[in-house]
């Protein structure tokens, strides 16, 4: 990294962004000042049944850049903390880290509007946070504590938030559910678009194709987002998929391939997708090519089906955070100190939330039979023996 930061820039410690008054230059040799905005080229998209794709370049303000960087850094940090909590045996069961894939969620979220909705699989910690759940809400769900967004009842695969419908443990199931969310947007006429995310492995589930068909038949405002991270558990894409051009696998649904390691590309593609879906053209497929650094879940070392060198190479050449950092620094959109400050802040916030996630208690045992039904018609729920009945409790306020 250090080679990418002009040593002169290091001297800028403490300086704030200087707004450039004139037209924005995409290249500049003004080493000692930062610009207010910069334009970036995007790796060409691949299009399926589309005449025109998303913009091939995008402009970022310094503020945009800092915000995106902060989100990327936060998501990475959440996963570092999660990995540690798992190793400390505070997170139990499965724990699927998103490290390496941050640019997909961060870029998408940056383009999304309040009205849009999201559903994804179990690799959902970062998404949950981006959809508005606090760090404590996320991390203490992973540790199963009462401050968790699902009160500790859902665990790492079942996080929910406003317009965020999980957090799903059954591979592929979230995709028709996503089409259902889109159906509701259309039904209500609220102008919202649903993003239904799934992996390259999930991409082969039959129910995806059923959802594709109905979404197209009924012109649902649904973006089917395939996060192609190269592997479904220990199986590489070419061993699982007869065609690994996931963007074209909607056949009659237009598709776009996007460099999922570039947060600017994912943001632009999402903007395009929203325009497309809100213009009544029906669904779209987006393949985001990305990579997962960790094993499938914490118990998978992730080294038997790929080489350490492969992981290392992606980290060095395609890392979504490092590459974005390089871009915004070399364009002098931000200063190294600003990024360092963000890093420090993010680390501090995540560390604090981690502490809370360890120190909060679990919910009381009376919640074992809490909220099974919206309206339970029986006050008693059977426990493990006839002598140990539970009482159904309404924890969440009913309307």
């Amino acid at each position, binding site marked *: 990294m250090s080679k990418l930061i002009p040593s002169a820039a290091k001297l800028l410690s403490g300086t704030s962004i200087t707004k450039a008054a004139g037209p924005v230059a995409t290249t500049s040799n003004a080493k000692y000042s930062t610009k207010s905005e910069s334009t970036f080229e995007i790796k060409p998209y691949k299009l399926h049944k589309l005449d025109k794709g998303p913009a091939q370049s995008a402009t970022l303000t310094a503020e945009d850049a800092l915000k995106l960087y902060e989100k990327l850094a936060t998501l990475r940090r959440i996963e570092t903390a999660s990995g540690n909590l798992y190793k400390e045996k505070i997170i139990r*069961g*499965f724990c699927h880290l998103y490290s390496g894939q941050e640019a997909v969620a961060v870029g998408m979220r940056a383009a999304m509007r309040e009205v849009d909705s999201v559903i994804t699989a179990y690799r959902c910690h970062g998404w949950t946070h981006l959809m508005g759940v606090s760090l404590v809400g996320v991390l203490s769900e992973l540790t*199963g504590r009462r401050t968790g967004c699902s009160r500790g009842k859902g665990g790492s695969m079942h996080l929910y938030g406003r317009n965020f419908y999980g957090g799903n*443990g059954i591979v592929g199931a979230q995709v028709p559910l996503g089409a259902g969310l889109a159906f509701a947007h259309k039904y209500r006429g609220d102008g919202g678009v649903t993003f239904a995310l799934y992996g390259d492995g999930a991409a082969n589930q*039959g129910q995806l194709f059923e959802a594709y068909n109905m979404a197209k038949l009924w012109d649902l405002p649904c973006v089917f987002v395939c996060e192609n991270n190269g592997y*479904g558990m220990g199986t590489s894409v070419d061993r699982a998929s007869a065609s690994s051009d996931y963007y074209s696998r909607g056949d009659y649904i237009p598709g776009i391939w996007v460099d999922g390691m570039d947060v600017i590309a994912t943001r632009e593609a999402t903007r395009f997708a929203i325009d497309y879906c809100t213009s009544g053209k029906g669904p779209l497929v987006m393949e985001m090519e990305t990579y997962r650094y960790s094993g499938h879940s914490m118990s998978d070392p992730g080294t038997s*089906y790929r080489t350490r060198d492969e992981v290392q190479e992606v980290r060095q050449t395609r890392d979504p955070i490092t590459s974005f950092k390089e871009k915004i620094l070399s364009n002098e959109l931000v200063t190294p100190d600003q990024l360092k400050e963000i890093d420090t802040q993010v680390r501090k916030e995540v560390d604090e939330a981690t502490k809370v996630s360890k120190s909060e208690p679990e919910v009381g045992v009376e919640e074992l*039979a809490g909220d099974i039904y919206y309206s339970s018609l029986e006050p008693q729920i059977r426990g493990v023996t006839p002598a140990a009945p*539970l009482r159904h409790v309404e924890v969440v306020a009913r309307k």
Partner: protein
Amino acid sequence: MALKSSPVLFGLLARLSRRSFSTSKALASKPVTVRDALNQAIDEEMERDDKVFVLGEEVAQYDGAYKVTRGLWKKYGDKRVIDTPITEIGFAGIAVGAAFAGLRPICEFMTFNFSMQAIDHIINSAAKTFYMSAGAVPVPVVFRGPNGAAAGVAAQHSQCFGAWYGHCPGLKVLMPYSSEDAKGLLKAAIRDNDPVVFLEDEILYGMPFPMSDEALAPDFVLPIGKAKIERPGNHITVVCAGKATDTALQAANELSGKGIECEVINLRSIRPMDFDTIAQSVAKTHHLITVEQGWPQSGIGAEICARVMESPTFFELDAPAWRVSGADVPMPYARALEALALPRAADVVAAAAAVIGNKIAEAAN
């Protein structure tokens, strides 16, 4: 109120003599884990019959998500140990079709939770075809994988399907407990000409059990539909299967210290169910509890109790039979809640004491 301890016999005593105790001698050559016993069973059957093949997610190159198929791909190659995409209904259908055509597929579900994606082929295609074809098309397929509770994986990944599949005519449903069960029953399942649902427990995979030389031999096969008395006792019959057997045996140990001797019956087979063994035991103990991890309503214990009600065994009971089961809730993630959602040894102890105590209380009236 009168006790029912002088039962209407209906020939039960005559059948008592047929009761068989544990099949294995305690000459344990070595402890073998359930995982290794399953692996051995598959390996031996693949060796024995080239129509046997394995398919499922991660079964080949990754050696199985839970390593049950470890080494088999290396040994038998791509033709017979096949990694599938994550497409349960697709590969379950392919397995059933291959079985129609006379092959003997072992279809692994990474866990049985995912068999829900494929349940149509298990029930509508596998279970019913022999009947629908009037015997023209046998379906010798085995669906296997870990079932039931696993630790800390929450509602979608932690549930028992014993009752679900046990409900369906045309299926045979096995639930091994020990390594001997695992090996002997899996081999029987693979050789059987009917579709078999074989429900393993992730939590038991790593558990070592002594295996006799007899059980280690390649010709060791257990009969489908026969229960095993894991521990004889006179005071109360405890019927269980799979992981619940472990819970029941722990409880039996504890109860023994309190002077209550449990007869622990490991069902091994949910369908067909060895009700004779249960009836014979109840004729001796006059008390019954069932232990399972699944939900109570329409569960395995519910079925056992119903059969008791429908048979002369009813008259053998000195107290109402109780079910110890999973609590009637989806599985929570939080540790303390999860622990309360599943039957523990203490729950079995309490239930046994209550059922036996019921009799004492009643007798006092």
